[in-house]
């Protein structure tokens, strides 16, 4: 019967909303209650160190090239043993969209995303962070990886001396 269906369709919703009235709200009341983001959450970016405590970043500019909003800038420099590093390294978090492309592009695992999402600020200029602010004392997500122990030009071991490397080949020796 149409009319009974209509009456039911009118009254049943009242019952349901009354039930919701006594259900616990789904809201997370932010400053008091905080959600724990998953470990791979993409928020504040850090620069990590390798297991020996040296800076991982080799100032290759791959991250700044990958960044869609161009918020990473740096100046490359070189130490005496030929190891490259960033003389200064700057991320403008006011522009960063936390896409994570920089962390994917990085060959040395230096730049990494962390779940620390509470970086809102009333002063955008204070969101421009320098290398001192970005550099942390740990390895981040990978405790073992050290770029120079796998490749690179003879900084830790002599050229070709890493365990997964072959000794350099003398091209002239191949000439028939």
């Amino acid at each position, binding site marked *: 019967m149409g009319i009974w269906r209509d009456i039911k369709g009118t009254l049943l*919703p*009242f019952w349901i*909303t009354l039930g*919701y009235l006594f259900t616990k709200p789904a*809201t997370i*009341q932010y400053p008091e209650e905080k959600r724990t983001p998953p470990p791979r959450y993409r928020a504040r970016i850090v620069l990590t160190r390798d297991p020996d405590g040296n800076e991982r970043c080799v100032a290759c500019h791959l991250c700044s090239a990958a960044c869609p909003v161009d918020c990473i800038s740096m100046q490359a420099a070189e130490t005496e043993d030929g190891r490259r590093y960033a003389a200064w390294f700057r991320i403008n978090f006011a522009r960063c969209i936390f896409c994570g492309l920089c962390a994917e592009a990085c060959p040395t695992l230096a730049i990494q995303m962390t779940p620390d999402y509470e970086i809102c600020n009333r002063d955008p200029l204070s969101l421009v962070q320098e290398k001192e602010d970005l550099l942390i004392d740990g390895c981040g997500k990978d405790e073992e990886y050290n770029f120079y122990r796998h490749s690179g030009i003879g900084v830790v071991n002599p050229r070709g001396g890493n365990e997964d490397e072959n000794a350099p080949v003398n091209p002239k020796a191949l000439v028939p």
Partner: protein
Amino acid sequence: MSDLLLNLALILVKLGLIFAVILSMAAYLVLAERKILGRMQLRHGPNRLGPFGLIQPVADVIKLITKEDFVPDQSDKWLFLFAPGLTALTALLSFVVVPFSPPLAIFGRELPMVVCDLNIGLLYFLGISSLGVYGVVIGGWASNSKYSLLGAIRSLGQLLSYELSMGLALIPVVLTAKSFSLTDIVMSQADWPNLVRHPLAFLIFLVSIAAESKRTPFDMPEAENEIVGGFHTEYSGMRFGLFFVGEYINLVILGSMLTVLFLGGWHGPLLPPIVWFSLKVLFVAFCFIWARGTMPRLRYDQLMHLGWKVLIPLALLNLLVTAAVLLALKG
């Protein structure tokens, strides 16, 4: 002479009291509505200011007062400025005839607990409540914006379709009470509330006042998502606030009317009359908020259909049957 002065003073005191109570009730109804709607949608609603957000109405008023009072360039200026006041005023005026407690005897005098016990209180209420739509229509017209005009037209059409059935639904009540005075109507419900005696009239009146209050499911004149707030699209600051407060005062008034006419007014066991009255009014207000949290908005033509083709014939039939039964009982 001194009798007249005393009466005048009493009326003024009652007016002041009612004014204060109604306004604070309207303010807290806004808060209650936001909280209840929030809980129905699994949110908290306002809870930042004071315990449970109890200071929120004060903050709202401060916000509304300090906002710019914007008058559109092309509007009909004086009508535009005047319309919100009309809405709030007519809403407040209706409360004059609502009896909220039986007459008190103080100092050997009979003190009626109603500002003015008109012998045609019911007609007064009907008249004032149809005046209330003028605020909306004038506001919508004077804004000179298409959305406002649409809202105004809708509220006029709405008025025409529900006022008739509302009046017709009230006649059975008058027939049993044999009086247009609201106090007499409440007195006549001492043993049975009219809800039991006239259930059909109650339902028709309930739907009609839901339409009168311009709230979901009958909020076509505002309809935020079709006509951007309807008649109050162009209003800002405290003028918008007046429309808003008017709506909630109206809610209190209609709740009290429903209480007085159908729910037995102040009659109830154990508790003092005034408490019963307030409880019933608050319950009706809660039901309106509940309906807002539950029902979708009707379409404009659906309201017309409901008013003209369902409610009015039903109300007429109900009137006929009630009158016949009353006549038979008497004869």
